[in-house]
């Protein structure tokens, strides 16, 4: 903690970040800063300029003639040493790391040049001649190739919809966008011909299910793919899950070139050809009783995953499956989920991951329903929120909501924003002819994914034929050196969230030390780290399950230390307390032994250890959250372990002359369970909020009618900037999760889920329309006003 004495516990305190000193000095170690093997060569990728075309011919001779060029690997050559990337749902469309004969999106790799330096590689890439026969691209979601079509029914949605007093129908389109981290994709690949294996360094973020995907595509089994991620990563927001594909591409190129190869993606490549959120059309019917009870929901979803169904997609569609009813106790839910291919870049993880899309439909419907029913939006929500005494609450689709007090959060946000005064001010403003609107939304924010939810893309019969899938575990290692130095090794691949700080807080509490005494290693090496398929940093899993692994390892190590100390101090293990670097007997602080002495004994004189204790002090262990079973025969799935709650209210004013939207006030109340470090929490919330406001007002990946991406630089893709982020009043209540070790839940995605629809609802209210599309740029809002 900055400038104060030790708190009662480090966990929960605003401990300063252990990451900062190096980063501030410019001594962070990002992957482009690495030269892990000597003699690295540099790659540039030749990419398709067409959204759909046949490759007629590739001529690499001019490129190969350029001095300093070692190799030009064509898609066909790359395919000759790789296999198609395995997909969650097999389709007729084979997906190789580079296109063999047909390109399906602008930016798809068709060849890779390897040269002495990046400048030469780009020169040579420009000399690779490719003849294309352009084909008609498919861009309309409703005309896309359907690769998965599943229907779900829970309760009696047809009967309930039939009996409903009011059915609110709407079509809600959510745009493609991207978290676009400031550091682009980087991969270093070093193929070893001596044993046919690959060592790859990549700023990958997990999930490590994709390690298996990459290994399979490279034809590697067992330990054939050693994947190393650096301790520093320049942001990800889900996007860098897709780096796994670059590992395959560059692994194959390194093999073909017989050289270690480094590839650093440029921003144009990143914005056009790396990854994207899904685009989604949701037709939603919401049925209400006469007094506003939400009785049924019927979703009809078309999910655009781009040119290939790339693992882990269609995960975006199923991540929220347990939460199709949102924060409401709606018993009857139907859903039809169609996954379609279009000639756009394949999709993958992106902050919010299905949540922004789901809640844009559901909470828009709630806002429109309030208008139709003539019930105040707050009252309508209150009428339907899951009651605080019903937790743990099992949703019709199978999620187990762990804890919450949704009404208290609602009361809190209304007080924070001064709701009644805002409504009065709106009335006054309207009387003056101003377009002021108020919007709200309630969002359940799942965290710690059950890897099994992806199998909902298959029918129960298809699932029954294979290995049942669940999985949410995380591993960690803690060791104490002979001189009592403590090192924690993470498998959570942080990208800025402060995992090292929180790990140091947890272990400092357990060992009676200060966070500054704990060294935390965030680099992950699949040959040495304690990882599993669900390892990594996605779906806000650190605070729930990453910490559980650290806590469990620390608890086991502390117990071992206390046993050795008890032997030394001739007391019972349970009477030993660890504090200030010493182990002492409760109530007799003079009877104590230093950690250094205990560690020394474990390393230098292991023969003397109490029975059953092994030499050294190193613990590797895994933790798993409860309840996350495979999907059942009725397609119910506990899709996540923990569920936070977020309720937001926004007040906006629309400029009558220009259509521009100004956010006058914004308040958000979170319940993320126990807060582990309140300052890190605020950082996550403000960051997630900025992304949410960005997609509400300006951020969108745009394609023209020929499938050309038009937002390929930061001059066209408008990341939200400092003057555009509105003031956020953020507050918290805490209902600890009974399913996570420290009671904490994920919280970095909630406002990315809520802000787009909250702002949309406020604009609806201001302008007086039901249907609108994001982002709410001034020309679009202008058009809405014309229509209203």
């Amino acid at each position, binding site marked *: 903690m900055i400038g104060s004495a030790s708190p009662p516990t480090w966990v929960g305190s605003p401990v300063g970040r252990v990451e900062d000193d190096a980063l501030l*000095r*410019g001594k962070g170690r990002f992957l482009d*800063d690495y030269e892990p093997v000597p003699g690295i060569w540099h790659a540039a990728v030749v990419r398709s300029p067409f959204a759909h075309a046949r490759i007629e011919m590739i001529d690499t001779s001019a490129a190969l003639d350029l001095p300093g060029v070692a190799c030009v690997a064509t898609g066909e050559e790359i395919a000759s040493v790789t296999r198609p990337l395995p997909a969650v749902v097999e389709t007729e469309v084979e997906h190789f790391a580079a296109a063999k004969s047909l390109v399906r999106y602008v930016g798809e790799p068709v060849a890779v040049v390897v040269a002495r330096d990046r400048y030469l590689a780009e020169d040579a890439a420009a000399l690779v001649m490719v003849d294309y026969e352009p084909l008609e691209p498919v861009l309309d979601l409703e005309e896309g190739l359907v690769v998965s079509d599943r229907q779900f029914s829970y309760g009696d949605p047809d009967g309930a919809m039939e009996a409903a007093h009011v059915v609110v129908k709407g079509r809600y389109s959510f745009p493609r966008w991207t978290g676009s981290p400031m550091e682009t994709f980087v991969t270093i690949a070093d193929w070893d011909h001596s044993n046919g294996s690959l060592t790859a360094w990549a700023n990958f973020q997990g999930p490590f299910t994709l390690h298996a995907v990459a290994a399979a595509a490279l034809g590697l089994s067992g330990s054939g793919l050693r994947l190393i991620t650096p301790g520093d990563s320049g942001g990800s927001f889900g996007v860098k899950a897709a780096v796994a594909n670059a590992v395959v591409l560059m692994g194959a190129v390194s093999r073909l070139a017989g050289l270690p190869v480094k590839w650093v993606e440029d*921003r144009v490549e990143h914005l056009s050809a790396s990854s994207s959120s899904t685009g989604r059309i949701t037709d939603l019917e919401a049925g209400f009783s006469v007094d506003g009870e939400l009785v049924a929901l019927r979703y009809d979803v078309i999910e655009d995953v781009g040119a290939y169904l790339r693992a882990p997609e269609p995960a975006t569609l199923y991540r929220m499956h347990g939460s199709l009813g949102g924060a409401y106790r709606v018993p009857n839910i139907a859903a039809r989920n169609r996954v379609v291919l279009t000639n756009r870049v394949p999709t993958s993880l992106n902050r919010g991951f299905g949540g922004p899309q789901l809640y844009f439909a559901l909470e828009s419907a709630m806002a429109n329903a309030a208008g139709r029913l003539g019930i105040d939006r707050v009252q309508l929500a209150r009428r339907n929120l899951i009651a605080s005494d019903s937790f743990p609450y099992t949703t019709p689709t199978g999620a187990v909501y762990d804890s919450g007090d949704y009404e208290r959060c609602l009361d809190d946000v209304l007080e924070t924003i001064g709701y009644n005064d805002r409504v009065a001010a709106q009335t006054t403003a309207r009387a003056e002819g101003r377009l002021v609107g108020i919007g709200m939304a309630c969002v359940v924010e799942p965290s710690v994914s059950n890897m099994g939810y992806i199998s909902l893309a298959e029918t129960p019969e298809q699932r029954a034929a294979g290995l049942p899938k669940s999985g949410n575990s995380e591993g960690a290692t803690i060791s104490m050196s002979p001189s009592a130095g403590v090192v924690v090794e993470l498998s959570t691949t942080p990208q800025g969230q402060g995992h090292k700080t929180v790990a140091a807080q947890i272990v400092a509490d357990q060992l009676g030390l200060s966070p500054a005494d704990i060294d935390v290693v965030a680099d992950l090496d699949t040959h040495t780290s304690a990882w599993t398929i669900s390892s990594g940093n996605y779906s806000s899993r650190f605070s729930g399950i990453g910490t559980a692994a650290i806590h469990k390892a620390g608890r086991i190590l502390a117990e071992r230390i206390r046993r050795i100390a008890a032997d030394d101090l001739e007391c019972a293990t349970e009477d030993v307390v660890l504090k200030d670097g010493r182990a002492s007997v409760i109530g007799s602080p003079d009877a104590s032994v230093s950690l250094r002495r205990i560690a020394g004994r474990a390393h230098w004189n292991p023969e003397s250890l109490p029975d059953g204790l092994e030499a050294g002090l190193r613990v590797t262990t895994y933790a798993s959250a409860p309840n996350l079973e495979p999907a059942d025969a009725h397609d119910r799935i506990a899709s996540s372990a923990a569920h936070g709650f977020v309720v937001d209210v926004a007040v906006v004013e629309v400029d009558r002359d220009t259509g521009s939207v100004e956010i006058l006030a914004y308040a958000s109340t979170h319940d993320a369970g126990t807060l582990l470090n309140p300052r890190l929490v605020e950082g996550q919330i403000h*960051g997630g909020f900025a992304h949410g406001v960005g997609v509400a007002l300006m951020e969108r990946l745009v394609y023209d009618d020929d499938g050309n991406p038009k937002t390929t630089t930061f001059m066209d893709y408008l990341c939200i*900037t400092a003057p555009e982020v509105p003031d956020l009043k953020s507050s918290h209540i805490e209902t600890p999760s009974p399913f996570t070790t420290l009671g904490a839940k994920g919280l970095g995605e909630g406002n990315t889920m809520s802000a787009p629809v909250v702002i949309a609802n406020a604009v609806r209210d201001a302008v007086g329309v039901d249907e609108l599309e994001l982002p709410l740029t001034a020309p679009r809002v202008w058009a809405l006003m014309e229509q209203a």
Partner: protein
Amino acid sequence: MAEITVTVNGRTHTENVEPRLLLSDFIRHRLGLTGTHVGCEHGVCGSCTVLIDGRAARSCLTLAIQVEGREVSTVESLASADELHPLQKSFQENFALQCGFCTPGILMAACDFVDRRADPSREEIAEMLSGHLCRCTGYVSIIEAIYEFSRNSSGLEGS
């Protein structure tokens, strides 16, 4: 190839460079000063910002040959071995960084900005920051860090 002589962080270097070599690549890969980061290579994100003769500049939009005879300062020049620069401390105290990739560029821009603009308002700081993209923080903590530094830095030497 052209020979250039440039002073970087107080040390003078004479190097042969291709005329097309970007200053950002020269700093990172020739001099090994990897604290300067490259986020877009088209001058929008601001990650690569350094000081040239004391003024903030995009090193990705500058050729190495353009700094012939000039003084360049990068993020590595700010802290001493023992102590962070007060601006860096203010970033640490305000939790003004997460992944830290955009941070070096913002630090250098803020040095120049506070040097030129005494007691800036938060709105003026946000306006300056509009030339920098940060995807992690939502900017509010960065604005606060620069604001606090600007209020505490009057009379500080060399900042």
